[in-house]
């Protein structure tokens, strides 16, 4: 079974400027504004239990691909299929309410990921311990540092019992020791037969954590295969261009 399947998926946006009522009256509704393709005709399958890295330069469509896979955005063309429970962990600090305490935010975040209070309470101690914020867990989140928020976000998303986890550039933060623990947890996920999709600029991390790598460029898949091969090609391409 495949955890994620994309068939001919494109995501496009109208390249538009800020539109106000005034502008609308002045220009009228022009239907033929050009499209900007964030993903173009992407077809791929990620099997259950695979660990897949996604690399590519800024604006290549990596995050868009994760969002389509998670069902957050609707494709403009094609079909995206997700099977089983998929937990996305995208950009830090979203889903955190500044005025609520760390503990309350764990419950709130859990609800965003479709979990009940009881389920989150059962995991509470493990989450707090892994994030290493014990002393501050009852203080409002607004008093936290970026690193603390990052650790809490990672701890919550990976404590939630999901079959597939999507990680977007999440490893870029935190100190070395926390990153090591993150890596270890991702490896554990893979060992347990769960599906991991990891978007990262850090090709070393992708190399060690993911067996397979996708290389995206301008919304299209230009490389797909064993991480060593794809990353070698990618780096060669980068040094050519640079």
């Amino acid at each position: 079974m495949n955890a994620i399947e994309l068939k001919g998926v494109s995501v496009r946006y109208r390249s538009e400027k800020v539109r106000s009522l005034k502008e609308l009256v002045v220009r009228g509704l022009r239907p033929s504004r050009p499209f900007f393709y964030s993903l173009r005709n992407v077809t791929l399958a990620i099997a259950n239990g695979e660990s897949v890295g996604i690399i590519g330069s800024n604006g290549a469509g990596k995050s868009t691909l994760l969002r389509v896979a998670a069902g957050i955005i609707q494709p403009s063309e094609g079909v995206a299929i997700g099977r089983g429970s998929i937990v996305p962990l995208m950009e830090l600090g979203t889903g955190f309410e500044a005025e609520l305490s760390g503990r309350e935010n764990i419950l709130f975040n859990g609800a965003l990921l479709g979990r009940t209070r009881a389920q989150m309470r059962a995991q509470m101690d493990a989450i707090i311990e892994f994030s290493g914020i014990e002393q501050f867990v009852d203080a409002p989140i607004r008093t936290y540092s970026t690193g603390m928020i990052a650790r809490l976000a990672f701890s919550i998303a990976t404590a939630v019992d999901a079959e597939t986890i999507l990680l977007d550039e999440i490893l870029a933060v935190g100190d070395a020791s926390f990153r090591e623990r993150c890596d270890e947890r991702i490896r554990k996920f893979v060992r347990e037969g769960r599906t991991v999709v990891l978007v990262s600029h850090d090709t070393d991390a992708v190399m060690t954590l993911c067996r397979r790598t996708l290389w995206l460029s301008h919304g299209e898949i230009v490389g797909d295969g064993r991480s060593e091969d794809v990353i070698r090609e990618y780096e060669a391409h980068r040094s050519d261009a640079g």
Partner: protein
Amino acid sequence: MIVQNQERHNVAGASLRARDEIHDLAAHANLLLELVHRDLTVRYKRSIFGFLWTLLHPLLLMAIFTVVFSHLFRRETPHYETYFLSAYIAWNFFSQTVTNAMASVAWNGPLMKRVRVPRSIFTLSSIVSGLVNLLLSMLALLVIMLIVRAPLFPSLLFVPISLLIVGVFTFGVSLALTALSVFFADVREMVQAGLPALLYMTPVIYPVSIVPASFRWIVERNPLTYLIEIVRAPIYYGHLPSPRTIIAALAVSLISLLSGWLIFRRLAPSFEGRL
């Protein structure tokens, strides 16, 4: 949808179906509770009176209007405070909820881009939070009515049905306005400017009888007149609203829900490009 052992197809161009959205909302009931809890607690977290502000605001207005108008409208409306509050509480629910719903969708925009939740959940949570505040305000009104010895009628039992109809109407209007406000920032400003005007076109502060015949059509064509009336009649006048008023209010709220949903459904799939 985050449900175990489920296959989720996300097809280009597929439109949002009401049945799917309702299922989706039901599956996220837990999130709805968290959102309502957050709405009700965070807002007042750092204020001393906290939750009481929700009640103090209409009470302060009541005090002002009672001082200003109770003498003026003495003949038409004995117990002006009950006359005013019974309608103003419903009005306040409508205007606050519409405003909050738009703010909530804008505020939670980043969230909608990062987790998959039903798009209407933020609008719905504003309605539910509003209804909680509305019920508390109604309790406060009862206390005031006891204090000023306004008569309490058995028709009060009809009020929950009235509030439900007002809630449905408000949900429809909020769906339409939140969807539109995502695309046009002007909508929020228009609503902010329009609400006070609408208040004066609705017989909340004044009795209909003082409206000159030549202007009465405005009041009579204003759908809110009927929605306010079905709340006020059982509280203040002590009788059920006339069948004509009930049917008008019911029709208005169903039309609001249907058109609100159609507008929302049309715009929701392109939200994430605009938030």
